[in-house]
């Protein structure tokens, strides 16, 4: 394999050198338990505090509003289950969207079994929630609205400040899963009226297994993980110090110069989209403009996604088909079905998510190898045979 192109940055990213450098001393050197009183424990404690400040600064939050977790999934579970339980007396209605990440959807499904009612807002063909739909869905017993900031598959960015504004008018809590948005969209929780926000370090060159939940000061939700007094008594367990340090450094870097970085990545994305759309019966999924700078998601009629990925891998290109988190499942992506794709087309989707490390040479290479792979798979596809016959 002569070339290697990583184009799956929405699945995960490499830990960057400055982040790794920041983390390394906390494995074997400053290995103290942050709860300990002696010097190496205090060093660890200070390091966690610094990461908390870095995270708060990146979000426009206060340090005491940041709670470290084991990742985006835990943060989503905690926020949603916590808000539901805390407001049980007020009501049992929650509003979300049909195309949330499974960390949100499966938590909601579990709550439905326990007696909560959930309204899932439509996202239409462009993959964007409509504020008017939210306004209409809010009821007196609605206790929580949770809408993702940017979709992980098709990269569409939701009108979060507007949605949060509607919630506040009506006195309803607003949570957003911002796992895909951090480092790509300028976020200020205060200005945007966000009450709770989930994030995950490995999506922005931090380590896997570390995330955070922002909880607005004054808001109280029950703990998901009980035990020691870590995270001011709200999230038990010895802190993943190295991971937290990595998260802090990574978010600091990711939230600096978002615009400049995005401009660069958008050029690559748009070149890639333009080229892919030249291939017969290939369509772009999700709004063309309201999308993350690096996200390309196309459906290729007549072929199935996994074989496409395997062939791309043989050419050194890392890509994905639907969400990496659910590749254990064989159902077509719920996101693609949500924007109206027929099942068979949803099966043939390809997600290429670019980052600042990618170059125009990468894009050119992908555009070079992809058409022949598609041709080859189509030539052996009985589905394509039918499409061609009908055309």
């Amino acid at each position: 394999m002569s070339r290697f192109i990583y184009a799956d940055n929405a699945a995960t990213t490499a830990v960057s050198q400055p982040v790794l450098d920041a983390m390394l001393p906390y494995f074997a050197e400053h290995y103290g338990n942050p709860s300990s009183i002696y010097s190496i424990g205090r060093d660890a404690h200070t390091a966690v505090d610094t990461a908390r400040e870095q995270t708060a600064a990146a979000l426009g939050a206060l340090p005491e509003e940041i709670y470290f977790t084991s990742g985006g999934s835990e943060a989503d579970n905690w926020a949603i289950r916590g808000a539901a339980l805390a407001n049980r007396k007020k009501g049992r209605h929650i509003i979300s969207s049909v195309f949330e990440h499974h960390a949100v959807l499966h938590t909601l499904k579990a709550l439905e079994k326990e007696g909560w009612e959930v309204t899932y807002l439509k996202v239409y063909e462009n993959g964007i929630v409509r504020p008017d739909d939210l306004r209409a869905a809010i009821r007196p017993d609605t206790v929580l609205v949770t809408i993702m900031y940017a979709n992980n598959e098709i990269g569409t960015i939701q009108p979060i400040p507007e949605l949060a504004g509607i919630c506040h008018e009506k006195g309803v809590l607003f949570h957003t899963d911002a796992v895909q948005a951090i480092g790509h969209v300028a976020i200020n929780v205060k200005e945007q009226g966000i009450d709770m926000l989930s994030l995950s370090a490995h999506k922005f060159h931090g380590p896997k297994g570390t995330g955070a939940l922002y909880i607005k000061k004054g808001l109280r939700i029950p703990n998901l993980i009980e035990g020691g007094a870590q995270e001011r008594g709200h999230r038990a367990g010895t802190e993943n110090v190295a991971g937290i340090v990595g998260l802090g450094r990574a978010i600091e870097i990711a939230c600096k110069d978002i615009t400049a970085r995005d401009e660069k990545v958008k050029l690559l994305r748009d070149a890639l989209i333009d080229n892919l759309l030249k291939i017969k019966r290939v369509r772009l999924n999700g709004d063309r403009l309201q999308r993350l700078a690096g996200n390309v998601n196309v459906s290729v009629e007549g072929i199935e996604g996994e074989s496409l990925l395997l062939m791309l891998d043989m050419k050194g290109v890392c890509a994905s088909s639907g969400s990496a988190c659910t590749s254990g499942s064989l159902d077509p992506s719920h996101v693609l079905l949500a924007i109206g794709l027929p099942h068979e087309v949803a099966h043939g989707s390809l997600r290429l998510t670019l980052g600042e490390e990618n170059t125009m040479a990468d894009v050119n290479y992908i555009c070079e190898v992809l058409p022949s792979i598609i041709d080859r798979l189509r030539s052996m596809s009985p589905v394509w045979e039918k499409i061609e016959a009908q055309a």
Partner: protein
Amino acid sequence: MLYSQKVMDHFSNPRNVGEITDADGVGEVGNPRCGDIMKMYLKINDAGIIEDVKFKTFGCGAAVATSSIATELIKGKSIDDALKLTNQAVVEALDGLPPVKLHCSVLAEQAVKSALADYYRRKGIDPEPIVGKIEDCEACALHPQG
């Protein structure tokens, strides 16, 4: 999810891909909603030997590989032998399949049976007593919950 070398070999160099225009039996199983369709073409001589076999598949790596190995396993064999092909034999011939992909081996077995059923039907023989009933979404039922 990890594929064996054998699976990857059959995926990247599938054997017997294509169509047989004057086939004696053609079968198609699976459905695009589920993400897998296999179409199998058989050329069977008067002695009941499968002289040629080709396939076309829409599906994942395992779907392609199971189709490919199934054609190898029945090519040159008698109809009776082909009817004995099981999905286990397909899995074994590929040095195993990830659990989430076992349904592909079922589909490959069904594709062969479906083509043989067509062969009998063309001869005016009711295939069901010989080939058995081919359930439409038998394979789909194996899909694990994600």
